[in-house]
């Protein structure tokens, strides 16, 4: 204590800066904690069985259909985007010549895609899938829009995971007489699984939290649709509609809490995988 006082007197400006640094950190973490605390305190009392009823009515404003839609959407999105993304990354890392023009173009476009805000994706999905393809507001339009949105994320993380696999593995496999394809599927991909998985989980987080890209593609019907060509809203959209209407604020708090819990879980899993990666790598 005395030492720090002395330090403060000798270098008052340094001391001030130090305090500011600590203050900033406290503000950052504090805002997060406050936000989580606020939503937990206001939302927890309103988590009732009604909220998880199978059918949505304007009285219970159940989030169950939205939750089911979110799961359907996430699964189908990943089914399309993961093979595509991994395939693209395999081509970029294993097949393409380093520094070729094509690789540069692909990398640049992937980078561009990852910087585009979700409302632009939404606009594109609306123009391309809902209007030009005449699919209207449907799960399928929403899914394809999200696929394009998460593709760059999966490509990038898979690329990094593939690059991290030591060349020794490849050489040993070729040396034993395995073909390129066999090497990729038997040796390289298994070694890269944790890295790929962390990218996939990050994309799940983005799908679960997405609103702007879905509002004019998947639409806002609060039921589980009978087919992919019908509209259905995800949890994040459900939450947006609730708070826009302003009639069911208690339910909105509870929905926010559920959404928050989902995101915390997704983040926790990705942290776990990252830790495992550090240990093995």
């Amino acid at each position: 204590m005395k030492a720090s006082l002395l330090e403060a007197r000798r270098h008052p400006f340094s001391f001030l800066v130090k305090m500011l640094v600590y203050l900033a950190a406290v503000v950052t973490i504090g805002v997060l904690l406050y936000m989580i605390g606020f939503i937990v305190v206001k939302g927890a009392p309103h988590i009732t069985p009604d909220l998880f009823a199978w059918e949505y009515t304007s009285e219970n404003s159940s989030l169950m259909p939205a939750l089911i839609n979110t799961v359907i959407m996430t699964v189908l999105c990943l089914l399309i985007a993961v093979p595509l993304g991994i395939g693209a990354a395999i081509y970029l890392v294993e097949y393409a010549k380093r520094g070729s023009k094509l690789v540069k173009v692909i990398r640049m476009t992937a980078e561009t895609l990852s910087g585009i805000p979700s409302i632009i994706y939404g606009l594109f999905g609306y123009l391309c899938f809902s209007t030009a393809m005449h699919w209207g507001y449907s799960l399928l339009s929403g899914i394809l829009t999200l696929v394009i949105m998460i593709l760059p994320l999966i490509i990038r993380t898979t690329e990094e995971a593939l690059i991290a696999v030591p060349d020794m593995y490849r050489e040993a496999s070729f040396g034993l007489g395995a073909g390129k394809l066999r090497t990729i599927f038997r040796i390289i991909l298994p070694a890269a699984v944790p890295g790929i998985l962390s990218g996939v989980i990050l994309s799940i987080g983005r799908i679960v939290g997405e609103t702007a890209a879905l509002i004019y593609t998947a639409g806002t019907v609060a039921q589980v649709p009978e087919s992919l060509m019908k509209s259905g809203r995800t949890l994040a959209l459900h939450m947006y509609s609730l708070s826009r209407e302003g009639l069911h604020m208690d339910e909105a708090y509870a929905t926010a809490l559920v959404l928050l819990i989902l995101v915390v879980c997704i983040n926790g899993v990705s942290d776990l995988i990252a830790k495992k990666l550090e240990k093995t790598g």
Partner: protein
Amino acid sequence: MNRFLEIFMKFLFFLAACTSVMAVALICIFLFANGIPAMKEIGLWNFLSGTVWKPTNGYFGILSFIMGSIYVTAGAILVGVPIGLLTSVFMAYYCPKKIYTICKTAINLMAGIPSVVYGFFGLVCIVPMMRDLTGKDGSTMLTASLLLGIMILPTIVSVCEAAIRSVPEPYYEGALALGATKERSVFATVLPAAKSGIVAGIVLGIGRAIGETMAVVMVAGNQPRMPKGLLKGVRTLTSNIVLEMGYAADLHREALIATGVVLFVFILIINICVSLLKRRSDYES
């Protein structure tokens, strides 16, 4: 047979790699093809510099939304950059090892929270707070700036921290050895050396802020007029699209798509800046 499979799979991988190129091309084609006719019909200059937006009367001027986007983003930068930068310094140089993982997890979590939850938090917490503070409507430019400032914090913190950590240790140690205090060493030698990385982080934050939609719609008031002050409501490019797309038709709809085109061009410019800065910081290290 095997040979055939090898070639076939290579082709398949190649096709997969081309999807991202195709996606960008499609996005450009659809946006420009649907947006440019409206710009022509309204007149590019009228569209960009008009301050009146009355779709029912045929007035389509988006200058007020452009200004709204710029003001709100500037406010978010004013809020987010100082706090974010100082926090990243804390993470890199001051944070005790024991709580570092906790802090890192918290920042990651902050980045993962969906924007609609931020918007909701703004709507139910910051807006009433502002209303009590100012005695007027709480959905203002200030509220939106504050909320966006919070939302871009994780981006700025993680990019700046990475930039600060990539500065070679001897810079810091050398300054300490010359008798500078820890603060002086960090702020006068390390930060300038990490400059381009930090700027890249800030520009990335600008991109986030300008493209953010749902959170802004929920707290900014959305009045379609020129922004008049910190404590007045604004409408941004993004919220204009989301608010009116649902019921717009004909020229109105096309004008909204053209709004998206303007936003898209903004974002492309920002993206180019980021990649230029990244290249420079790679080159420096």
